[in-house]
């Protein structure tokens, strides 16, 4: 039995290295125990069986691109079982069926898709619901955001934020890691201090004004809203503080339009 402790999150690179090594030694998935220690030390194997397999790394396996893409997402899931699952699928693609990834009714594949899907959604919501606040920095624009993704979605969305806000200085802080961008280089910092995020922003009042007024009180579809924007996201979105009152007053506002209409 081999125990592999991945000591970084999300752990894609470490998983890949370790998997290659296990494959090179022909260790089947049921003989590997995967662990994820949430530690930031950049050290691949925790203990035991420090294997030297470099010579065998030349073995080439053909893994479909679609599988690698799925692994990438699934490995950003917070579920510790992700490493074992991905290695098992990898093994089965090589030794059982190279088209395994297409068998969407296979238990492992279904689970892999489920993990990847959860991460994709989480990452999408991050790009949608993250809010920057401007740090008062003597003429130097610097935007800072605090966001709590459910999975390791920061890694998935770094490209997006770097592309969209390339010429802007920004910092995104999550509970496990922060990314700082100075328009040229990216700097990652583990376990950042959330107190650097400003409490307010000079533009936020305009955003709240816009949010309250673009809403149509004559049509209430609270469930449709909650479906797309569940309450767990609300605490870091300033506009959500208005929602309760908007719903409470909507009936009266819509009614007033009808009454006013009757007056003519």
């Amino acid at each position, binding site marked *: 039995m081999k125990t592999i402790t991945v000591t970084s999150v999300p752990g894609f690179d470490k998983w890949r290295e370790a998997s290659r090594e296990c494959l090179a030694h022909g260790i089947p998935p049921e003989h590997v125990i995967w662990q994820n220690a949430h530690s930031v030390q950049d050290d691949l194997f925790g203990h035991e069986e420090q294997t030297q397999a470099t010579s065998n790394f030349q073995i080439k396996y053909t893994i479909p691109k679609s599988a690698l893409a799925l692994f990438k997402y699934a490995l950003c899931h917070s579920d510790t079982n992700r490493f074992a699952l991905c290695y098992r699928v990898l093994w089965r693609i090589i030794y059982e069926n190279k088209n395994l990834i297409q068998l969407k009714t296979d238990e492992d594949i279904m689970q892999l898709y489920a993990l990847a899907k959860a991460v994709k959604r989480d990452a999408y919501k991050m790009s949608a619901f993250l809010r920057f606040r401007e740090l008062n920095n003597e003429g130097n624009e610097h935007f800072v955001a605090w966001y709590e993704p459910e999975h390791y979605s920061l890694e998935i969305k770094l490209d997006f934020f770097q592309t969209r806000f*390339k*010429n802007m200085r920004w910092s995104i802080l999550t509970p496990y890691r922060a990314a700082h961008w100075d328009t040229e280089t990216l700097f990652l910092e583990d376990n950042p201090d959330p107190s650097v995020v400003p409490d307010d922003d000079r533009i936020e009042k305009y955003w709240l004004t816009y949010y309250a007024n673009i*809403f149509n*009180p004559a*049509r209430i579809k609270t469930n449709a809203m909650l479906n797309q924007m569940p309450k767990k996201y609300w605490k870091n979105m300033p506009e959500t503080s208005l929602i309760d009152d908007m719903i409470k007053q909507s009936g009266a506002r819509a009614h007033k339009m009808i009454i006013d209409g009757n007056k003519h």
Partner: protein
Amino acid sequence: MHDKLIQKLEILSDAAKYDASCASGSAGKRQAGKTDKAGIGSLTGGSGICHSFTPDGRCVSLLKILMTNYCIYDCHYCINRVSSNVRRARFSVKETVDLTLNFYKRNYIEGLFLSSGIVGSPDLTMESMVRIAKSLRLDHGFKGYIHLKTIPNASPELQAEAGLYADRLSINVEMPTQPSLNKYAPEKDLGAIHGAMNTLKDKITEHKVDKTHSGKRPPRFAPGGQSTQMIIGADDSNDKIILGTSVKLYSEQKLRRVYYSAFSPIPDASQVLPLKPAPLIREHRLYQADWLLRFYGFTLDEIVHDDMLDMDHDPKLAWALRNRHVFPIDLNKADKMLLLRVPGLGARTVQKILSIRRYTKLNWIDLTKMRLPLKKLKPFISVGDYSPDIHLLDSNNFELQFKQPKQIELFGA
């Protein structure tokens, strides 16, 4: 502090909410700063991001505002018509540009959706709108999304210029027929609207060509195409007329999207209008039908059996109930177009079925694993080890089992 800009924003976003479109998609990919140090923004390629949701269930993706709500026209359904008593305001070019950039930098929005009342003349209005888009693009290198609501009677030159800076252009037809327009929007003319749409269509197609004969790429022109909106339930047009208008707009004017907006009462409403809002379920059914027409290979006559859509069943299920002889459909053998017609199978599921089927035969257990809506599917399909009771499809009270309890949520809390 209640500053002036807040007041303007209140008025001019309130006035913009009756436009249902919030989409910011399908204008291709691009990004700022690829080659230089200036500019901001990107388009991600797919459909735009929904940055927030309001309790009316709509997504907030763009800063959707009117440049001004002063208007010389008197369209009855419109809150901004000249005879309405609403407060009036006007944004300057700079205010609109700053607001857009400031919102964008905080990740509130994907871009700007600018519409306007007609102030002075159609040309003057259009010109100011174009100046806003131009300033965002040229002065600030803004690469986010811009949607301009075109003024139908503005000059072709201004329309052409708008297309250089906007990702999408739209002109609202508002009502599906000329008689309805006469009654509710006396200054609007369906012929002129279609004319303007055709002009835009020609420009868009012309600029879609990859390269000109000289090898140069033509300048971009509204890469996201054009869209429009119809108000539902203010006039008495039935669903067949409405969807018929949509089919024409999709095929002749090559529109990307037709939006349907259930009429809802507006403050200081005109007396010509009905007092009550149109049911949201009708709007919902129209969107479903619109989808089937565009992506599922259904024809108008197949979808609208009578003049109105069935409010109790979604249009695909309603079609299936009227065409029971087609079923059951064998999921292991049927071609794609037929699979798309099965109630409960969406385009994505169909794709999945086709891909699984290449490697293995589908059995009932596979359907449960795929988490398909089995109750709905059951009577309409067969797989390796399952086929439905034929008498079930033929029984008279068959459709009763699909009757849903009233969808309370749709009618308001």
